[in-house]
């Protein structure tokens, strides 16, 4: 049994306006199907407007799709009864792109991280604090940060707190919705490093949604390309991706910038 199975998901936003002036079809997701196995990471690459975020929400169980099924550990998350859903939810967490808007500005780091713990594990005050400190240390922060408020952290640090909250319940799958995109390069790579460490330590699976090919490849086992709501192709390796003939993939590939000036294609001039 696969950890996550997405079957034939279709979704479109219908405008609930009284008068329809133009007959627009707003298809966001078209016939999306894929599978994520336990302990693997699926990277989904797409430009803005490709339907990445909607797909993330559908999988997280907060945006029922108009058609299709999302099976998590074999259960349809939209058809499960309340109790099962609560259990499923525990195993399914998220880290969003905008670290600032992902935390309540009026709560301390401790409060933020302990929220899931409060909901699922009845711990004593002391135990809970210990757990939070453990989590903070695990993501590279420390005890001193417990009482700090979000505005006292940098974007990267906040993203670590978001990660700590996501792993607090030891989930099976974490949806990383552009989780590193708004960070600068250095921070980005540090967070990516942390994520792949955590993946190994906790046996996590990721759905890594991004527009950054390099970042996607750095932690993914599988890569999918999403374009205008369609999942174009799925690749098991970089080689597969780089040998694809699909025109959209080709354009994507062409846009990747050289990693060393020796391989530059845009300009040649340099002394």
């Amino acid at each position, binding site marked *: 049994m696969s950890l996550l199975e997405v079957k034939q998901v279709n979704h479109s936003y219908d405008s609930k306006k009284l008068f329809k002036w133009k007959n627009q079809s707003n298809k966001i997701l078209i016939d999306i199907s894929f599978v994520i196995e336990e302990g693997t990471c699926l990277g989904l690459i797409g430009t803005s407007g490709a339907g990445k975020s909607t797909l993330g929400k559908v999988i997280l169980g907060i945006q029922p799709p108009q058609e299709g099924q999302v099976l998590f550990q074999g259960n349809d998350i939209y058809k499960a009864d309340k109790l099962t859903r609560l259990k499923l939810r525990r195993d399914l967490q998220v880290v969003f792109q905008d670290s600032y808007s992902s935390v309540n500005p009026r709560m301390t780091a401790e409060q933020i991280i302990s929220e899931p713990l409060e909901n699922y594990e009845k711990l004593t005050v002391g135990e809970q604090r210990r757990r939070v400190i453990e989590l903070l240390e695990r993501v590279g922060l420390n005890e001193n940060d417990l009482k700090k408020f979000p505005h006292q952290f940098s974007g990267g640090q906040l993203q670590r707190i978001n990660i700590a909250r996501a792993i607090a319940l030891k989930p099976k799958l974490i949806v990383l919705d552009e989780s590193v995109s708004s960070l600068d390069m250095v921070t980005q790579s540090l967070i990516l*490093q942390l994520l792949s460490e955590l993946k190994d330590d906790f046996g996590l699976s990721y759905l890594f949604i991004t527009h950054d090919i390099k970042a996607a490849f750095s932690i993914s086992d599988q890569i999918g390309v999403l374009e205008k709501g369609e999942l174009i192709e799925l690749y098991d390796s970089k080689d597969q991706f780089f040998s694809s003939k699909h025109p959209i993939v080709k354009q994507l590939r062409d846009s990747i*910038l050289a990693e060393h000036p020796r391989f530059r294609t845009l300009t040649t*001039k340099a002394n």
Partner: protein
Amino acid sequence: MEKKNRNILSVRDLQVQVRTKEGSSTLVQNINFDIKKGEILGLVGESGSGKTVTSMSVLQLHDRKSMDITGSITLHDRELNGLENKEMRKIRGKDIAFIMQNPMNAFTPVFTIGHQFIETIRSHTSLKNKQAKDLATDMMESVNLPDPDKLLKKYPFQLSGGMLQRVMIAMAACLKPSVIIADEPTTALDLHSQLLVLRLLDKIRSKYGTSILLISHDLGVISEMADNVIVMKQGRIVETANVYELFDNPQHEYTKKLLRTRPTLYSQKQPYTYML
């Protein structure tokens, strides 16, 4: 003497301090660099390292009431630091052009692209409206922007970010400035637009011999574009080097870390991009 002349823009011992009630705090210090004619100087650093402060100092756009700028900034041997606003205004847009990070917010939303294009031209030349318009159209044609007449009539919100960024570059290059400062010009764009914008920048450079100060945190952009690179960290320059040297043989620990930790597509020895 001759060597000195080749430096279009020179910055020496630049230090910027901001005065607050608690005292002054230093934003950048000991900044030294030169840009030669036709050179692209890459400026790398993470957010908050002082990249934008530096470029704003060159343009003298800091609020002088609350900021102290010391050191020397010379353009064609002319000292810019401390220059009167009136004089500086003649230089901005004409001799030093600026390309902003987020093109969607850079244009005044209520005026057409053409209006702003013509406005720029006319504030630096004595051209008539019609001539300025022709100049703008020509410029846009020469940088391969499709259907310039139509584009000029559009409002900023009607264009995509990539398109706007290209218009902005055309606008910057239009008066053939000596230096273009491009502050993270591709960060807000998707991959394909990024490619188009970078191509365009290179075209401007080779066509007009414009020098470019290219600020970016993306090493990919730097490796594609820059001739020389300065690496900044916490308001200081930690390393200045030729782009090849920097990538092959980084000296400073910070640079090494930058190169080491970045996500790559290396397969065995070569990056995939090279294979294509």
